[in-house]
């Protein structure tokens, strides 16, 4: 999950490296994702999420479709 200044920079990097394009997400959406994904691990009640719970977190910020399907 790498940071880029813009979509143009992503495109140039893909051309230069030969990598296949994955998914480009605005940093503002990644912020929403990070808020929903990372519960405070200092809390005694913390536990790992189930696969379905993680899938729901992705969907809650609009990340749906085959690319975002967890195993």
């Amino acid at each position, binding site marked *: *999950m*790498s*940071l880029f200044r813009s979509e143009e920079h992503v495109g140039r990097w893909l051309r230069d490296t030969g990598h296949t394009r994955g998914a480009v997400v605005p*940093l503002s959406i990644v*912020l929403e994702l990070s808020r929903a994904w*990372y519960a*405070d691990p*200092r809390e005694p009640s913390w536990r790992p999420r189930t696969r379905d719970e993680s899938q729901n977190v992705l969907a809650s910020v609009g990340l749906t479709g085959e690319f*975002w399907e*967890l195993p």
Partner: protein
Amino acid sequence: MSFAISDIRVFVYETLLDGGRMPTAADMAEHFGVTRDDVVDTLRTARIGKTLLPDPHTGEIWMAGPFSARPTTYEVRRGARRWWANCAWDMLGVANLVGDPVDISARCTDCGNSLDFQFAPATGTVPDWVVHFLVPARRWYDDIGFT
């Protein structure tokens, strides 16, 4: 003193957030009054993914999601405390866990230019930049270092 993986988890994150550094297995052994091998074995068998991921060779914590024990290009600072994040997603995860305004330093993966900004979790505005997810979600945990 007895200890469980949940005790280690809380200790690791408290040390990270309060002290700005990843505790070593020796730190944890001393804190809990056990041997370093006890700590390493507990971490190895915990299998809670990237939440506490030990280095397979040294047994030391490599990732305590979203934190990295090793320097990365995603750095979050508050005063004298400094943390490294595993990726662009995690740098915001670190900032949110810190909970106070932080300075974030990163680089554009393409051109290498600095991408620095101040971030306040309470207001939560971020620059108009983008994140590229190279690996589809079904393969995120095949090689978490690469992902």
